[in-house]
Protein backbone atom coordinates (compact mmCIF):
# COMPACT_ATOMS: atom_id res chain seq x y z
CA UNK A 1 0.00 0.00 0.00
CA UNK A 2 1.50 3.39 -0.98
CA UNK A 3 1.95 6.17 1.54
CA UNK A 4 -0.90 8.23 0.12
CA UNK A 5 -3.67 5.64 -0.03
CA UNK A 6 -7.27 6.71 0.29
CA UNK A 7 -7.40 5.56 3.89
CA UNK A 8 -4.33 7.57 4.84
CA UNK A 9 -5.79 10.66 3.25
CA UNK A 10 -9.10 10.15 5.05
CA UNK A 11 -7.29 9.73 8.37
CA UNK A 12 -5.18 12.81 7.71
CA UNK A 13 -8.24 14.90 6.90
CA UNK A 14 -10.20 13.57 9.86
CA UNK A 15 -7.48 14.07 12.43
CA UNK A 16 -6.61 17.58 11.26
CA UNK A 17 -10.27 18.60 11.04
CA UNK A 18 -11.22 17.06 14.38
CA UNK A 19 -8.03 18.37 15.95
CA UNK A 20 -9.01 21.84 14.80
CA UNK A 21 -12.47 21.42 16.32
CA UNK A 22 -10.98 20.33 19.65
CA UNK A 23 -8.59 23.28 19.64
CA UNK A 24 -11.44 25.69 18.90
CA UNK A 25 -13.60 24.12 21.62
CA UNK A 26 -10.75 24.50 24.11
CA UNK A 27 -10.18 28.10 23.05
CA UNK A 28 -13.84 29.12 23.51
CA UNK A 29 -13.81 27.70 27.03
CA UNK A 30 -10.39 28.88 28.15
CA UNK A 31 -10.92 32.48 27.06
CA UNK A 32 -13.73 32.99 29.58
CA UNK A 33 -13.93 32.48 33.36
CA UNK A 34 -14.10 28.74 33.97
CA UNK A 35 -17.18 29.18 36.18
CA UNK A 36 -19.22 30.21 33.14
CA UNK A 37 -18.47 26.82 31.60
CA UNK A 38 -19.34 25.25 34.97
CA UNK A 39 -22.76 26.93 34.76
CA UNK A 40 -23.33 25.35 31.34
CA UNK A 41 -22.48 21.90 32.71
CA UNK A 42 -24.62 22.49 35.82
CA UNK A 43 -27.60 23.38 33.64
CA UNK A 44 -27.75 19.77 32.42
CA UNK A 45 -28.74 18.72 35.97
CA UNK A 46 -26.78 15.49 35.59
CA UNK A 47 -23.82 15.91 37.94
CA UNK A 48 -23.39 16.91 41.57
CA UNK A 49 -21.70 20.24 42.22
CA UNK A 50 -18.26 18.81 42.98
CA UNK A 51 -18.29 16.89 39.68
CA UNK A 52 -19.45 19.95 37.75
CA UNK A 53 -16.57 21.99 39.13
CA UNK A 54 -14.03 19.21 38.44
CA UNK A 55 -15.16 18.72 34.85
CA UNK A 56 -15.24 22.46 34.23
CA UNK A 57 -11.63 22.80 35.35
CA UNK A 58 -10.20 19.76 33.59
CA UNK A 59 -12.13 19.37 30.37
CA UNK A 60 -10.93 22.45 28.44
CA UNK A 61 -7.29 21.47 29.00
CA UNK A 62 -8.06 17.90 27.94
CA UNK A 63 -9.63 19.24 24.76
CA UNK A 64 -6.52 21.34 24.15
CA UNK A 65 -4.23 18.32 24.52
CA UNK A 66 -6.39 16.16 22.24
CA UNK A 67 -6.41 18.93 19.64
CA UNK A 68 -2.65 19.33 19.72
CA UNK A 69 -2.05 15.58 19.47
CA UNK A 70 -4.41 15.13 16.56
CA UNK A 71 -3.22 18.11 14.56
CA UNK A 72 0.39 17.20 15.29
CA UNK A 73 -0.16 13.56 14.37
CA UNK A 74 1.10 12.34 17.75
CA UNK A 75 -0.39 9.37 19.61
CA UNK A 76 -3.30 9.56 17.21
CA UNK A 77 -4.80 6.22 18.23
CA UNK A 78 -5.00 7.19 21.90
CA UNK A 79 -6.06 10.77 21.28
CA UNK A 80 -8.77 9.66 18.87
CA UNK A 81 -10.13 7.06 21.31
CA UNK A 82 -10.20 9.60 24.14
CA UNK A 83 -11.80 12.19 21.89
CA UNK A 84 -14.47 9.77 20.70
CA UNK A 85 -15.22 8.71 24.28
CA UNK A 86 -15.61 12.32 25.43
CA UNK A 87 -17.82 13.15 22.47
CA UNK A 88 -19.97 10.09 23.16
CA UNK A 89 -20.51 11.26 26.75
CA UNK A 90 -21.31 14.81 25.54
CA UNK A 91 -23.75 13.52 22.98
CA UNK A 92 -25.49 11.32 25.50
CA UNK A 93 -25.85 14.26 27.89
CA UNK A 94 -27.21 16.46 25.09
CA UNK A 95 -29.77 13.83 24.09
CA UNK A 96 -30.84 13.52 27.73
CA UNK A 97 -31.21 17.28 28.19
CA UNK A 98 -33.01 17.73 24.88
CA UNK A 99 -35.48 14.95 25.67
CA UNK A 100 -36.19 16.62 29.02
CA UNK A 101 -36.95 19.89 27.25
CA UNK A 102 -34.16 21.84 28.91
CA UNK A 103 -33.56 25.18 27.21
CA UNK A 104 -29.85 25.42 27.92
CA UNK A 105 -26.55 26.10 26.23
CA UNK A 106 -24.93 23.11 24.58
CA UNK A 107 -21.69 24.18 26.30
CA UNK A 108 -19.70 22.74 23.40
CA UNK A 109 -18.24 25.99 22.08
CA UNK A 110 -18.74 28.47 24.87
CA UNK A 111 -21.88 30.39 25.88
CA UNK A 112 -24.58 31.36 23.40
CA UNK A 113 -24.57 27.97 21.67
CA UNK A 114 -28.13 26.89 22.47
CA UNK A 115 -29.00 23.20 22.63
CA UNK A 116 -31.17 22.46 19.60
CA UNK A 117 -31.80 19.95 16.85
CA UNK A 118 -29.03 21.66 14.88
CA UNK A 119 -26.45 21.26 17.69
CA UNK A 120 -27.48 17.62 18.06
CA UNK A 121 -26.95 17.08 14.35
CA UNK A 122 -23.63 18.90 14.45
CA UNK A 123 -22.27 17.03 17.45
CA UNK A 124 -23.65 13.74 16.17
CA UNK A 125 -21.66 14.30 12.99
CA UNK A 126 -18.55 15.08 15.00
CA UNK A 127 -19.05 11.93 17.04
CA UNK A 128 -19.38 9.86 13.87
CA UNK A 129 -16.19 11.39 12.49
CA UNK A 130 -14.39 10.79 15.80
CA UNK A 131 -15.46 7.14 15.86
CA UNK A 132 -14.34 6.72 12.26
CA UNK A 133 -10.94 8.21 13.05
CA UNK A 134 -10.54 6.02 16.13
CA UNK A 135 -11.40 2.92 14.14
CA UNK A 136 -9.19 3.78 11.18
CA UNK A 137 -6.22 4.82 13.31
CA UNK A 138 -6.20 1.53 15.17
CA UNK A 139 -6.01 -0.49 11.97
CA UNK A 140 -2.56 0.63 10.93
CA UNK A 141 0.43 2.57 12.23
CA UNK A 142 2.44 3.73 9.23
CA UNK A 143 0.87 7.21 8.92
CA UNK A 144 2.85 10.28 8.08
CA UNK A 145 4.12 11.91 11.30
CA UNK A 146 2.54 9.33 13.65
CA UNK A 147 4.57 7.93 16.56
CA UNK A 148 2.74 4.82 17.78
CA UNK A 149 3.40 1.17 18.48
CA UNK A 150 3.15 -1.11 15.40
CA UNK A 151 -0.31 -2.54 14.81
CA UNK A 152 -0.64 -6.30 15.33
CA UNK A 153 -0.04 -8.35 12.19
CA UNK A 154 -2.83 -10.62 10.90
CA UNK A 155 -1.04 -13.71 12.39
CA UNK A 156 -0.93 -12.34 15.98
Amino acid at each position, binding site marked *: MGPWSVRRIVVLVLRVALGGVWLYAAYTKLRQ*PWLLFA*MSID*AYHLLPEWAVLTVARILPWTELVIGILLVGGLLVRYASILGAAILAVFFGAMISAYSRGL*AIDCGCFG*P*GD*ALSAWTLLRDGTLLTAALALAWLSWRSCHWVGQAVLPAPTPNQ
Partner: protein
Amino acid sequence: MTSMRPLAAALALLLIVPAVAAGPSGNSTRAIGSPTAPITIELFSDFQCPHCKELHDETLPSLITDYVNTGKVYLVRHYFLLKFPYSRLSATYACAAERIGRYDQACDALYKTQQSWGQTGKVDEAVCSALSPADAKKVRELVKDPSVAMEIEKDTALGVSQNVKSTPTLIVVHNGKRTPIELAVSYPMLKRYLDGMLTH
Protein backbone atom coordinates in the same frame (compact mmCIF):
# COMPACT_ATOMS: atom_id res chain seq x y z
CA MET B 1 -43.58 90.35 43.45
CA THR B 2 -46.92 89.88 45.21
CA SER B 3 -48.66 89.45 41.86
CA MET B 4 -46.24 86.62 40.96
CA ARG B 5 -47.30 84.39 43.85
CA PRO B 6 -50.58 83.10 42.39
CA LEU B 7 -48.81 82.42 39.09
CA ALA B 8 -45.98 80.58 40.84
CA ALA B 9 -48.46 78.55 42.85
CA ALA B 10 -50.40 77.68 39.72
CA LEU B 11 -47.21 76.59 37.96
CA ALA B 12 -46.21 74.47 40.94
CA LEU B 13 -49.61 72.79 40.95
CA LEU B 14 -49.34 72.07 37.25
CA LEU B 15 -46.06 70.25 37.89
CA ILE B 16 -46.92 68.46 41.12
CA VAL B 17 -50.45 67.20 40.47
CA PRO B 18 -49.64 64.95 37.50
CA ALA B 19 -46.68 63.44 39.36
CA VAL B 20 -48.82 62.67 42.41
CA ALA B 21 -51.62 61.25 40.26
CA ALA B 22 -49.16 58.96 38.47
CA GLY B 23 -48.02 57.35 41.71
CA PRO B 24 -44.48 56.01 42.33
CA SER B 25 -41.85 56.51 39.59
CA GLY B 26 -41.78 53.81 36.84
CA ASN B 27 -38.64 51.88 37.77
CA SER B 28 -38.71 52.19 41.52
CA THR B 29 -39.29 48.48 42.18
CA ARG B 30 -37.85 46.78 39.11
CA ALA B 31 -34.42 47.99 40.04
CA ILE B 32 -33.47 46.98 43.55
CA GLY B 33 -30.39 47.47 45.64
CA SER B 34 -27.77 50.17 45.64
CA PRO B 35 -26.88 51.72 42.23
CA THR B 36 -23.33 52.10 43.53
CA ALA B 37 -22.94 48.37 44.21
CA PRO B 38 -19.77 46.87 42.69
CA ILE B 39 -21.78 44.48 40.53
CA THR B 40 -24.88 45.21 38.45
CA ILE B 41 -27.01 42.39 37.13
CA GLU B 42 -29.41 43.20 34.33
CA LEU B 43 -31.98 40.46 34.07
CA PHE B 44 -34.02 40.05 30.89
CA SER B 45 -36.99 37.73 31.35
CA ASP B 46 -40.40 36.77 30.05
CA PHE B 47 -43.19 35.96 32.49
CA GLN B 48 -44.36 33.00 30.42
CA CYS B 49 -40.89 31.47 30.14
CA PRO B 50 -40.60 28.35 32.36
CA HIS B 51 -36.87 28.84 32.88
CA CYS B 52 -37.46 32.41 33.99
CA LYS B 53 -39.86 30.98 36.56
CA GLU B 54 -37.13 28.58 37.67
CA LEU B 55 -34.70 31.47 38.07
CA HIS B 56 -37.29 33.59 39.90
CA ASP B 57 -38.25 30.80 42.29
CA GLU B 58 -34.90 29.20 42.99
CA THR B 59 -32.14 31.75 42.43
CA LEU B 60 -33.45 35.27 42.86
CA PRO B 61 -34.64 35.05 46.48
CA SER B 62 -31.19 34.05 47.75
CA LEU B 63 -29.49 36.51 45.39
CA ILE B 64 -31.61 39.34 46.76
CA THR B 65 -31.07 38.33 50.38
CA ASP B 66 -27.34 37.67 50.20
CA TYR B 67 -26.14 40.15 47.60
CA VAL B 68 -28.71 42.81 46.75
CA ASN B 69 -29.75 43.62 50.32
CA THR B 70 -26.10 43.71 51.42
CA GLY B 71 -25.10 46.25 48.80
CA LYS B 72 -23.01 43.92 46.66
CA VAL B 73 -25.33 43.68 43.67
CA TYR B 74 -27.68 46.12 41.98
CA LEU B 75 -30.41 44.11 40.26
CA VAL B 76 -32.27 45.62 37.33
CA ARG B 77 -35.09 43.57 35.88
CA HIS B 78 -36.15 44.15 32.28
CA TYR B 79 -39.05 42.97 30.20
CA PHE B 80 -38.04 40.90 27.18
CA LEU B 81 -40.81 39.53 25.03
CA LEU B 82 -40.43 36.10 23.52
CA LYS B 83 -43.02 34.47 21.29
CA PHE B 84 -45.22 32.94 23.96
CA PRO B 85 -48.94 33.65 23.48
CA TYR B 86 -49.28 35.79 26.62
CA SER B 87 -45.79 37.30 26.93
CA ARG B 88 -46.99 40.78 26.07
CA LEU B 89 -50.14 40.63 28.18
CA SER B 90 -48.32 39.40 31.28
CA ALA B 91 -45.58 42.01 30.88
CA THR B 92 -48.24 44.70 30.46
CA TYR B 93 -49.89 43.80 33.74
CA ALA B 94 -46.54 43.63 35.54
CA CYS B 95 -45.55 47.02 34.15
CA ALA B 96 -48.91 48.51 35.15
CA ALA B 97 -48.49 47.09 38.65
CA GLU B 98 -45.01 48.56 38.77
CA ARG B 99 -46.50 52.03 38.17
CA ILE B 100 -48.28 51.79 41.50
CA GLY B 101 -45.34 50.20 43.26
CA ARG B 102 -46.70 46.65 43.16
CA TYR B 103 -44.19 45.07 40.77
CA ASP B 104 -43.04 42.31 43.12
CA GLN B 105 -46.59 41.29 44.00
CA ALA B 106 -47.51 41.07 40.34
CA CYS B 107 -44.28 39.28 39.49
CA ASP B 108 -44.72 36.69 42.22
CA ALA B 109 -48.36 36.10 41.28
CA LEU B 110 -47.51 35.68 37.59
CA TYR B 111 -44.74 33.16 38.18
CA LYS B 112 -46.66 31.26 40.84
CA THR B 113 -49.62 30.64 38.53
CA GLN B 114 -47.70 30.63 35.25
CA GLN B 115 -48.84 27.19 34.22
CA SER B 116 -52.49 28.12 34.74
CA TRP B 117 -52.69 31.48 32.93
CA GLY B 118 -50.25 30.18 30.33
CA GLN B 119 -53.00 27.83 29.19
CA THR B 120 -56.08 29.95 29.86
CA GLY B 121 -54.79 33.46 29.19
CA LYS B 122 -56.35 34.69 32.42
CA VAL B 123 -53.53 37.07 33.27
CA ASP B 124 -55.88 39.69 34.71
CA GLU B 125 -57.21 37.20 37.21
CA ALA B 126 -53.70 36.01 38.13
CA VAL B 127 -52.40 39.51 38.86
CA CYS B 128 -55.46 41.26 40.25
CA SER B 129 -56.28 38.48 42.68
CA ALA B 130 -52.97 39.22 44.39
CA LEU B 131 -53.78 42.93 44.76
CA SER B 132 -56.26 44.89 46.81
CA PRO B 133 -59.45 45.86 44.95
CA ALA B 134 -58.28 49.47 44.78
CA ASP B 135 -54.89 48.49 43.36
CA ALA B 136 -56.47 46.05 40.95
CA LYS B 137 -58.70 48.83 39.63
CA LYS B 138 -55.67 51.11 39.11
CA VAL B 139 -53.78 48.33 37.32
CA ARG B 140 -56.71 47.66 35.00
CA GLU B 141 -56.74 51.33 34.05
CA LEU B 142 -52.98 51.52 33.58
CA VAL B 143 -52.97 48.44 31.34
CA LYS B 144 -54.71 50.59 28.72
CA ASP B 145 -52.08 53.35 28.95
CA PRO B 146 -49.99 53.45 25.74
CA SER B 147 -46.92 54.44 27.73
CA VAL B 148 -46.96 51.01 29.40
CA ALA B 149 -46.71 49.27 26.05
CA MET B 150 -43.98 51.70 25.02
CA GLU B 151 -41.98 50.93 28.14
CA ILE B 152 -42.12 47.22 27.42
CA GLU B 153 -41.06 47.75 23.80
CA LYS B 154 -38.21 49.97 24.96
CA ASP B 155 -36.97 47.30 27.36
CA THR B 156 -37.16 44.60 24.71
CA ALA B 157 -35.31 46.83 22.25
CA LEU B 158 -32.65 47.39 24.90
CA GLY B 159 -32.23 43.65 25.22
CA VAL B 160 -31.98 43.22 21.46
CA SER B 161 -29.33 45.94 21.33
CA GLN B 162 -27.35 43.97 23.91
CA ASN B 163 -27.63 40.79 21.87
CA VAL B 164 -30.10 39.10 24.19
CA LYS B 165 -31.63 36.19 22.28
CA SER B 166 -33.27 34.09 24.93
CA THR B 167 -34.57 34.24 28.45
CA PRO B 168 -33.56 34.31 31.12
CA THR B 169 -30.42 36.26 30.32
CA LEU B 170 -28.42 37.86 33.11
CA ILE B 171 -25.87 40.44 32.07
CA VAL B 172 -23.35 40.77 34.87
CA VAL B 173 -21.55 44.11 34.85
CA HIS B 174 -18.38 44.49 36.89
CA ASN B 175 -15.49 46.91 36.40
CA GLY B 176 -16.92 47.95 33.07
CA LYS B 177 -17.02 44.41 31.70
CA ARG B 178 -20.36 42.92 30.66
CA THR B 179 -20.73 39.15 30.80
CA PRO B 180 -23.93 37.48 29.64
CA ILE B 181 -25.23 34.36 31.37
CA GLU B 182 -27.87 32.90 29.12
CA LEU B 183 -29.52 30.29 31.30
CA ALA B 184 -31.40 29.78 34.56
CA VAL B 185 -28.19 29.59 36.56
CA SER B 186 -28.43 27.85 39.92
CA TYR B 187 -27.75 29.92 43.01
CA PRO B 188 -24.66 27.93 44.15
CA MET B 189 -22.98 28.53 40.78
CA LEU B 190 -23.97 32.18 40.64
CA LYS B 191 -22.75 32.65 44.21
CA ARG B 192 -19.33 31.22 43.32
CA TYR B 193 -19.13 33.48 40.29
CA LEU B 194 -20.12 36.62 42.16
CA ASP B 195 -17.83 35.84 45.11
CA GLY B 196 -14.96 35.38 42.67
CA MET B 197 -15.64 38.78 41.13
CA LEU B 198 -15.95 40.48 44.50
CA THR B 199 -12.62 39.15 45.74
CA HIS B 200 -10.69 40.23 42.61
